[in-house]
């Protein structure tokens, strides 16, 4: 599943950091394949998605499109619920970042739809320090699920992450690609 960090000394006691680190995905087809593999995915939206523009849209609009095209329930954190409502989208659940992570790490949790815990959690729009800590929690304590980040920069604690992306156009192309591929899978 996740790959070993790129350079691991033969003698593991000399390792610099943990030996499990995120696999990078940047081809929208690969990303969609991971999403489609999941039975009960969840999309956790952070407040940065309501503030950052990408192309001529707010980041949150890409999130809404992905959620719709992939039929993925949304968990709104912090102040994102209000923005979603402005776009006519009622989030399937409202938890703050640490609360949703706390629930996710319980394998018995019933999930936001009451159908069982999620097997893939997609994150976008959470401050990178807090996200890093939250993903660390899931990496260590939630072996029952995978995590995928669609943020602009690499998240080592996720299972799947975009690489560091320095050009917004590239990021936009990936997100658009994900939406398109999800849509075509839907048909």
């Amino acid at each position: 599943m996740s790959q070993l960090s790129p350079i691991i000394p033969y003698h593991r006691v000399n390792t610099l950091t943990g030996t499990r680190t995120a696999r990078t995905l940047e081809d929208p087809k690969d990303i969609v394949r991971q999403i489609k593999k999941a039975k009960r995915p969840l999309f956790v939206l952070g407040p940065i998605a309501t503030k950052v523009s990408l192309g001529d849209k707010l980041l949150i609009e890409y999130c809404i499109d992905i959620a719709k095209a992939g039929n993925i329930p949304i968990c709104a954190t912090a102040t994102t619920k209000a923005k979603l409502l402005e776009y006519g989208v009622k989030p399937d659940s409202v938890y703050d970042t640490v609360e949703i992570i706390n629930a996710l790490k319980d394998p018995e949790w019933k999930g936001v739809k009451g159908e069982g815990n999620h097997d893939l959690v997609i994150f976008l729009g959470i401050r990178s320090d807090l996200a890093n800590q939250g993903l660390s929690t899931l990496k260590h304590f939630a072996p029952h699920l995978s995590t995928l980040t669609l943020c602009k920069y690499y998240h080592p604690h996720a299972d799947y992450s975009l690489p560091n992306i320095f050009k917004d156009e590239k990021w936009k192309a990936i997100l658009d690609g994900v939406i398109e591929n999800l849509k075509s899978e839907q048909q």
Partner: protein
Amino acid sequence: MELKELSKRLEEVYRKIKAELNWEPVGPTPMPELSDLRNWDMRLLKTYKPFYAPFCDMCCICTFGKCDLTEHRRGACGIDIATQQARLVLLACLIGCSCHTGHAAHILDYLIEKYGPDKKIDLGEGVAVEAPHIRTVLGMKPETLGDLKVAIEYIYKELTHLLSSVHTGQEGSYLDYESKALHAGMLDHVGMEVAELAQISGFNYPTSVAETPLVDLGWNAFDKTKPIILFIGHNPATSTAVVDYLRESGLYDKVEFGGICCTALETARYSDRAKVVGPLSRQLFFVRSGIADVIMTDEQCIRTDITQEAAKVGSALIATLEKAMYGLEDATNMDTDEIVRKMVDEKKQFVILNPRKAAEVAVKVAMEIAPKRRKEWITEEEAKELAKKCSLCGLCEQVCPNLFNIGKGISEVAKGNFDTIRDIFNLCIGCGKCEEECPRNVPIFKIMQQAASKEVWKIRAGRGPIMDTEIRNVGAPITLGTIPGVIALVGCSSYPDHRDLAEVVEEFAKRKYIVVLSGCAGMVAGMWKDADGKTIYEKYPGNFDAGCVVNVGSCVANSHITGAAIKIANIFAALPLRANYEVMADYVLNRVGAVGVAWGPYSQKAAAIATGCNRLGIPVVVGPIASKYRRLYLSRKEEDDWRVMDARKKQIVDTGEPSPEHLIYVCETKEKLMVTLAKLCIRKNDTPQGRAIKLNHYISLYKKYMGGGLPEDLHLYVRRDADIPLVYKKEVKAYLDSIGWKPKEPVGLPTWIGTYPTKVPVDAVIR
């Protein structure tokens, strides 16, 4: 045999706390050891379970390792990742507690040397319960400085045992490590209290008065034409000696003095001529401006490269405490004039451990070098010129702990636009990583000088303990809920945005909460003016009462905030506190709607303070950066155990009400913070009237900051119709009907005593 041992230990404890003095009966846990309050801790941890966010996958503290703890691997010693996190949290709490206790012990010895051990502790007419923590934890009523030594020795002993438990191959349960961390947190508040009692008595700080002097705040507060002495740290032994020396030598208004961090606050309690430059986040900025002639360091939160930084800008430097000596020569026994000559002519830096001598040297050196020092901030033109070197490579952004786009701000300056860099400055935690990383050596901090506000604000000097009369007045409204809560903003300055603090104070003071501040938070909240040019300290009275804003003082003054919570149980509710920790903590948890906020904590001291609040039943909200502390205490409201004992009926009742919902919790944004604070003030003890007031604020803050609608968990906090705030009656009723809400009986006297194994009888919580 065991019994005999136990009674021997108790005999010893009773002797130390002067048990024969009959001011209150000695409760069940005098001078508690590691395991004495463990059952209380386990009860807390049952509802508020530890939540770990490992900051590092590895352990590297013994030569078995490094050990990779990912994917359920155990270390070579057998430890798992959760227990390792708990161990590190305990270690942080121990570091924090030993800082405060070390400070307390130093200042106590200094004052005992000066005044003798029999000097009376005197907090003025308004404060009869002088030491709520020492009385509750140790079971002793300290009367003299000498008595305080007993508390210090007790903490030393506990700290040794706690620290030893961190060794490889000791504790193996994360829950037990948490219990030990809670113990360390409790001791921390005792240590802070000792420091405060000693300082207030020894330095005659204001006490038993609400309206303390307003002092100048801001990094433009100094008169730059005069010699300037800057204190950095937390211990006022030397800074007060500087004030004394200036007074005695007729130089009191000829030299400027003030500080960064808590020594600034302490000095302002000693002299209202002292300036408060700002919080920790402004330290490196101010030092690099070169405006200080002499920098005097004492202890804690000082840049460890302060000697190099001072030398770079030509400020003289004196280290005044053993805990931070920077490899400098110890000149404590050198002739004063010789030290001055070497500092001025040879630019030497020294350690001087005698406060009186250090003071004299500092003043003399400052007088000599001030005429040659630069007196102004850099100009806009200079800043623009310096900014032109930036190539927008973005390397600075990659190392910024607060994730800012600094290069953008700098390149804008080159074009003459200072807005972006000003915004960044307001958010910046002042670590200096950006400038260090810059391959083109752009002097980012120098450029930011231009962006920094040249405003001078006001801060109310720390007022110390809350008076007993104030406690009597607010005890009933707080426990009934008609004063909707006490919000305490404390701790360090790594905020997501410095402007958040004043906003929180405004929001809750206007709503008639009691707002309390300390440390860097107290400063930053003052760095804002309303349309009439008034700071929060000029706008709101300094009483401990509804709608007031109280600055208690420095970090160690946090003991007065938790102390006030204990005093509500003791003075207002008349429950004995002597060696009666569980009863006090249980009362606070279930009946006192107080919440702590550490919006930008970075230090181990903050970890200890927060953990001490938690053991006493006070929830704490922290800012996003604090997720790096690795551990929170969270409940899951719909699933957890919300049963309490109704002490009147002696029945266990399932309330289903998550109040308070969490013990330590991270909020990502200011908006979420506002709403969370209102919610965390809810207690099971609230009367219908009190509950309606609290819910009114919860709903209205939710509508204001979360964009409308009703809070998702509102139904959990409405017990009966009478709890529903009038203004929202229709909307709330419709919502409750739609989800099939059913009313439930409020609990008469909610308590946890009787719901877990404890020596304390249920009747102990009734008066």
